[in-house]
């Protein structure tokens, strides 16, 4: 796992990009990311989001339009999609792991841990929910996400590139389903002798 010292050198040598970077966001063993001014609430609806239907048609039915504001009140029992103000340029030899900062976990908001792959560039998009009976006010510029970086055993052979659907995402970008995935080919490895 990269220490603050290593993170600073990765940034200084231009291998890892985090912009805008305010130096106090580099923590002991990771970097804090901040809310941008964009918030996109998930709609309360009885309709079912079907992950095999094109997302471009479904997203407007399940997500409200993006709100630009200095703060957003995440109401009890609601969820909102947020984006970081920082733009991240991942090198080909690092992987990053995203977690909610402890303060937001203590505020009882939930968000799934996710990973950022080697070679990815963009603003990080994340969905926060508050399933409990009180709301939470989210302020633009507040640090809410903690990112850990770890080096790879070798640079990625196929870094995340232009074919990746979230490459260079700017601001709020909703989910994009791969609809062609049903035709995926499967390769079954030979069963090793040691099995069970």
């Amino acid at each position, binding site marked *: 796992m990269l220490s603050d010292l290593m993170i600073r050198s990765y940034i200084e040598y231009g291998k890892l990009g985090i912009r805008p970077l305010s130096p106090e966001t580099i923590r002991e063993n990771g970097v804090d990311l901040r809310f941008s001014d964009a918030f996109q609430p998930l709609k*309360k609806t009885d309709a079912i989001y079907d992950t095999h239907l094109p997302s471009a048609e479904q997203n407007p039915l399940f997500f409200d339009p993006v709100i630009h504001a200095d703060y957003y009140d995440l109401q009890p029992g609601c969820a909102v999609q947020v984006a970081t103000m920082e733009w991240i340029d991942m090198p080909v030899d690092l992987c990053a792991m995203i977690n909610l900062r402890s303060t937001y976990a203590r505020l009882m908001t939930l968000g799934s*841990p*996710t990973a950022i792959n080697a070679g990815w560039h963009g603003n990080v998009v994340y969905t926060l929910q508050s399933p409990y009976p009180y709301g939470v006010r989210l302020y633009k510029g507040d640090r809410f996400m903690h990112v850990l970086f770890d080096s*790879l055993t070798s640079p990625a052979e196929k870094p995340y590139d232009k074919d990746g659907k979230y490459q260079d995402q700017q601001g709020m970008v909703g989910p994009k389903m791969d609809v062609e995935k049903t035709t995926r080919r499967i390769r079954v490895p030979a069963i090793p002798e040691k099995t069970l």
Partner: protein
Amino acid sequence: MIVSDYDLSHDIEHDRLYIDPLYDDAIRQNGIDFHLGDEVRRAKEKEILDIRSGRNLEEWTESEICKSFVVHPNESLLCRTAEYLEMPDYIVGLCYLRSTYARLGIIIPATVIDAGFKGTLTVELRGNPSFGMRLYPFDPFMHVIFPTLDSPVVKLYRGKYQGQIAVTAPRADIPLEAV
């Protein structure tokens, strides 16, 4: 250090890490995409689940084999991976939801695969509070990254979920002295 795509391919080729089936595009930059299995398990009773009660917790939950399933608002359910996995003794697995599903507000709690584990993975999925979602087996939903250990493990995983194939309900701990 996290095992790169190049080294993952190498480890799979040499049967150090075993994944069946291995989808063609499953190996990503720094990890492996896992796909949903065709079974989910939901709680069917609203009473308190007591893992020490001696009762078989499989009865408290209901398994369903399905072509697709809906995660209702605020619902938690257990699903499994389509893949069967055998972990070697020098890496650990960390499970992360893929970004597309995270954007929909789905949550999987932090899940760790121990060195030496064999089986399919049973994973908790939690829906968002706003709307239901229909998910399909054999779609990639989880990205697993494999950090290396400081040394190979002396005592490999031999736990109560070893060899599990179906979605497995929680089981009572085996007393430590019996392991």
